[in-house]
C-alpha cells in the first residue's frame, strides 16, 4: 500500500533542514526471455520503499527504507540528516539555495490506453516463445535467437518541504528480438526492438513483433559475409536511431549542468553557435512531438514538472539540463532533469527524450546528393567524452556511390567531435521517430531514456578494419 502524500509530508516536516524530500517508489519489473526454444528468464519482481534526501549545512544526506511505517521512516530521516551533517564538514562549496522550479502538485499518469495489465502473463510468455521461434525460421543461417519482453510499472509519490506533492503512475514496456546468424565459423547478430511509455498497443505501434523478427533475421543473414568499410572521413546519412544516439551520447551528456560545471566542452558557450543552423535539439520530459517515447517523465524526482528543454536552437546553445541545485548556480529555473532509478537511488541530472527537430528534406533527395558516403541504420550503443569526442556503432551501413544506395557493410563505427559533426549537418529530414527507447543510460545508476529525430546528413570519421 502506498503511503499518502500527507503522511510523507508529516515525516519530512520533522527534518531540521534547509530542504527535505521524500519519494515513495514502488516498482514492478517483469520479464520473459527465451533463447533457442529454451526459457532464459521468467520473473515477477517488486521493489518498493521510500528514499529521503535532506540538505543540511549546505550538504546533502540520503537514506532509504523499505518499511513504510512511521518509526522506520523517521529513522531514515535521522540517518539522512546525520550523514548530511557529517558530509558538510567536507563540503568546500556549500549549497546555499536551490533554484526556482515549477513544482508539481496532484496526479500525473504517463501511461496510455490498452494497459499492460489487460494482457495476461500467458499472452506475453506465448508471444516471446512464438517470435523467438519465428526469427529462427526465417533463414537457414539464423541458427539462434533471443526474444525478450520486459515491463516496468512504477508508482511514485514525491513530496518536498517547499511544496511539491505529486502522485505518478507510469508504464514502460520493452520488446526485443535478436537473430544470430552463423556460417563457416562466422557469427553475426542483429536486433530489433521497441521501448515506449504507455500500453501494449503503443509498444507495437511502429512495427508488429512479427515484422521485428523478420527484420532482425533478414539483417543478420545479410550481415554474414558483409565486409567492413575503409577507415575514412566521409559524408554519412544517419537514421533516427543514430540521430537519437548522437543527440543523447555526444551532445546530451556534455550539456548536463553537473558535467558543464566540471568543465565539459560547452562550458562558457551559452548563446554561441555550436551547430549548423539547421539543428534544433531538445531534451523533453513529456516528448510531446510524438507521445509515448521510452524516456518520458511528466515530473522529475525532485517533484519538478519536466520541461521541454530546447538545448540548441537553430544552431545556438540555448540551455543546459538542470536539477534544482545547478539551476540556482546558473540563476535559471530547473528543467526537471533530476532522476532517480529506484527508491535506493538519489536524484541525479539525467536526460529524458533527446532529439533533433525535423527539417524539410526528403529522404531520397538526401541520398541523391551524396557522391560518396554511407547510410547508417540502427544504433549499437556508444560513448562520448568530456571533450565532445564520441564514437558509436551502426547495425547496418550501406555504401552510397553517386546517389545510389549500394552494398551492406558491417562492424561500422563512426566517431568525431560532437559539435564539429553537428556543425557539418547540411540536410535535416522531414521524417521523425523516437528509436532508442528500449535502452538504458548508466551514470552511477540506470535511467530509461529515449532519443530520435529525422534522418540527417553530416560528416564523421567512419571506422573499419583497413586504413585508407
Amino acid at each position, binding site marked *: 500500500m502506498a503511503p499518502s502524500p500527507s503522511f510523507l509530508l508529516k515525516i519530512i516536516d520533522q527534518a531540521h533542514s534547509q530542504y527535505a524530500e521524500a519519494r515513495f517508489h514502488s516498482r514492478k519489473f517483469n520479464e520473459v526471455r527465451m533463447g533457442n526454444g529454451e526459457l*532464459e528468464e521468467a520473473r515477477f519482481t517488486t521493489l518498493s520503499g521510500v528514499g529521503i534526501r535532506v540538505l543540511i549545512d549546505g550538504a546533502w544526506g540520503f537514506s532509504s527504507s*523499505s518499511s513504510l511505517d512511521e518509526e522506520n521512516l523517521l529513522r531514515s530521516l535521522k540517518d539522512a540528516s546525520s550523514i548530511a551533517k557529517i558530509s558538510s564538514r567536507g563540503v568546500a562549496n556549500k549549497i546555499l539555495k536551490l533554484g526556482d522550479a515549477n513544482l508539481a502538485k496532484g496526479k500525473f499518469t504517463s501511461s496510455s490506453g490498452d494497459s499492460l495489465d489487460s494482457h495476461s502473463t500467458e499472452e506475453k510468455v506465448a508471444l516471446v516463445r512464438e517470435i523467438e521461434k519465428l526469427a529462427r525460421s526465417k533463414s537457414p543461417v539464423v541458427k539462434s535467437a533471443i526474444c525478450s519482453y520486459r515491463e516496468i510499472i512504477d508508482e511514485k509519490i514525491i513530496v518536498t518541504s517547499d511544496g511539491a506533492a505529486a502522485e505518478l503512475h507510469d508504464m514502460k514496456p520493452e520488446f526485443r528480438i535478436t537473430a544470430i546468424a552463423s556460417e563457416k565459423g562466422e557469427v553475426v547478430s542483429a536486433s530489433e526492438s521497441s521501448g515506449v511509455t504507455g500500453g501494449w498497443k503503443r509498444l507495437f505501434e511502429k512495427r508488429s513483433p512479427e515484422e521485428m523478427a523478420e527484420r532482425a533475421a533478414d539483417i543478420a543473414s545479410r550481415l554474414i559475409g558483409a565486409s567492413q568499410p575503409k*577507415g575514412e572521413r566521409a559524408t554519412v546519412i544517419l537514421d533516427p536511431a543514430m540521430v537519437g544516439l548522437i543527440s543523447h551520447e555526444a551532445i546530451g551528456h556534455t550539456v548536463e549542468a553537473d558535467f558543464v560545471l566540471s568543465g565539459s566542452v560547452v562550458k562558457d558557450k551559452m548563446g554561441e553557435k555550436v551547430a549548423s543552423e539547421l539543428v534544433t535539439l531538445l531534451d523533453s520530459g513529456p516528448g510531446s512531438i510524438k507521445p509515448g517515447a521510452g524516456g518520458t517523465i511528466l515530473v522529475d524526482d525532485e517533484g519538478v514538472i519536466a520541461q521541454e528543454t530546447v538545448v540548441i536552437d537553430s544552431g545556438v546553445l540555448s540551455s543546459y539540463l538542470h536539477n534544482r541545485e545547478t539551476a540556482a548556480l546558473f540563476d535559471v529555473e530547473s528543467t526537471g532533469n533530476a532522476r532517480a532509478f529506484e527508491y535506493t537511488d538519489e536524484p541525479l541530472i539525467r536526460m529524458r527524450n533527446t532529439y533533433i527537430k525535423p527539417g524539410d528534406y526528403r529522404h531520397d533527395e538526401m541520398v541523391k546528393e551524396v557522391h560518396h558516403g554511407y547510410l547508417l541504420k540502427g544504433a549499437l550503443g556508444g560513448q562520448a567524452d568530456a571533450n565532445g569526442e564520441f564514437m558509436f556503432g551502426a547495425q547496418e551501413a550501406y555504401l552510397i556511390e553517386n546517389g545510389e544506395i549500394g552494398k551492406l557493410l558491417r562492424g561500422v563505427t563512426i566517431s568525431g567531435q560532437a559539435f564539429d559533426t553537428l556543425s557539418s549537418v547540411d540536410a535535416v529530414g522531414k521524417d521523425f521517430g523516437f528509436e532508442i527507447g528500449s535502452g538504458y543510460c548508466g551514470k552511477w545508476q540506470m535511467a530509461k531514456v529515449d532519443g530520435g529525430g529525422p534522418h540527417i546528413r553530416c560528416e564523421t570519421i567512419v571506422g573499419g578494419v583497413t586504413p585508407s
Partner: protein
Amino acid sequence: MEACRIGKEKALQFGASEVEVYGRSIKEVESFLERNDIKLGKSHSHAILGIRVFKEMAMGFASLNELTVDHIEKAVRDALKIAGMTPRDENNILPRKSSSIIHDGLYDQAAEGFGASDSLEVALEMLETTKSYDPRVTVDSGAFNSSIFDNVICTSSGIERSETISLFSWAIMGMATEGAEVSSFDYQVGSTHEVRGIHATAAARVFAENVVNSLGAKKIQSFTGGVILSPQALMELVLQTVVSSLRSDNVQKGRSKFKDRLGESVASESLTIRDDGTNPNGPGASSFDREGVSTSPIVLVDNGELKSLMFNTYTASKDGAESTGHATGSPRSSPSVGPSNIMIDPGEVSKEELISELEKGVLVTRFSGNTSAVSGDFSGVVKGGFLIERGEILHPIKETLVAGNVFDLLRNISAISKEREWMESALLPYIHVEGISIIGG
C-alpha cells in the same frame, strides 16, 4: 535465513516440486564526489529475496524486498504462476548439497565500525590527492563505498549456506583542462575486502596522472602496427568478448566462437586465463555461487588451448557435466552464468620492455567502442593513448580509432607483461599485439 526458510516452506506447501530461495542483505555507507567537492553522503540497508521454483520441470521466479510473511507468500504464488506457463525443461534441476567451506579473507570485522565519517575521510583524501597532483585536474565525479553483504541460500535439495562479505570500493573520474583544451576522460576504480587494503588515493593519483598526461594530444596518420593494451583497455576491448564466449550457455546456443573448440588452440601460447572465486584479493570472490555451489579455481584457457567453459547447474546438466560454481546474478533474477575473478597469467617482460621493444605503435590506456561479443569484431576510439616510435613514447594522441577482431587478436599476442592490475574483478597484465589497424583522424 528465516525469511529464506519461510519462502522454501511456502513454495513446497503451494505445490513447487523444487525451490531455491536466495537472499542478500546489504548495509552500506557511501560518500559521493562531484566537481572537486563532496556531493552527498548516503547510508542505508536493505534486503532482497529471490525465489526460484520448479513445477513439473518448468521454472518461475519472483523477487521482493518487503520481507513480511504475506509478501513472501505472494511472491511464491507469483513464481508458481509463471512456472505454470513456461516450457518444461529436464535440465531445470537444483544442485545437491556439497561442502560448506567458507573462504578466508572476505570479511573484515573492522568493516562493522566503518562509518560515514570514515567514508568521508577517504573521499576527501581522494580529492586532496588529485588537487595536490596538479590544479588542472577536475574530478567530475567519484565515490567511496563501504558495504557489508549477507548472502543466504536455502533449497529443497538440502543446501543451507550463508556468508558475510565486506567490500570497500572506490571510483574516480574526470578530466584535465588547460585553457580551452579538455583532455580525454579517465576513470579509475578499486576495491578490497579489508580495511587495511583501502588504497583509494593510489587510484586517485593514477587518474590524475592519466588525465594530465593526455593533455596536448595530437592527431596521427593511419598505419597498421603494434598496440600495447593496458589492463583497463584489455578489459574494455577484449575481456568482455572472451568471457562471453567462455560461458557455457552462449556456447550451447551458438552465440560463441568457442563452440566445438574444446581442446583446440584458440589463442597465442603465451595466454593462460583462469577464474578463481576463492581469491580474496578480487572483489568477485565468494565461498559459494548464486546456486549455493562452492567456488573453486579453474583454468579456462591453458597456454592458448581452450580447456574448460564456465557452467552453472542448468548448463552443466545439458552437457552432462558438473557445475563449475559459475552461477551468477543478484537475488532479483534467476541464476545466470558468469565469472567471479578472471585472471590472465603474467608474462616475463616488464611493461617498460614492452614499450621499448615496439618499433611503431600505440599504447592504448582506454578503449571506447563497440565489440560484438558474438563475432569479436571491434572498432572504437583510443582514449588516453600515446604514439610510440622506436621504443619511445612520443606524445598523447586523439581522434584515433582501432579496429579488428578479438579472436584474431588473441592469436597475435606477442608479449605479456609481468605487471598485473586489478580491474574490478579481473586481474590483467599489459599485452602487446601486432598487426592492428590504427586509423588517424
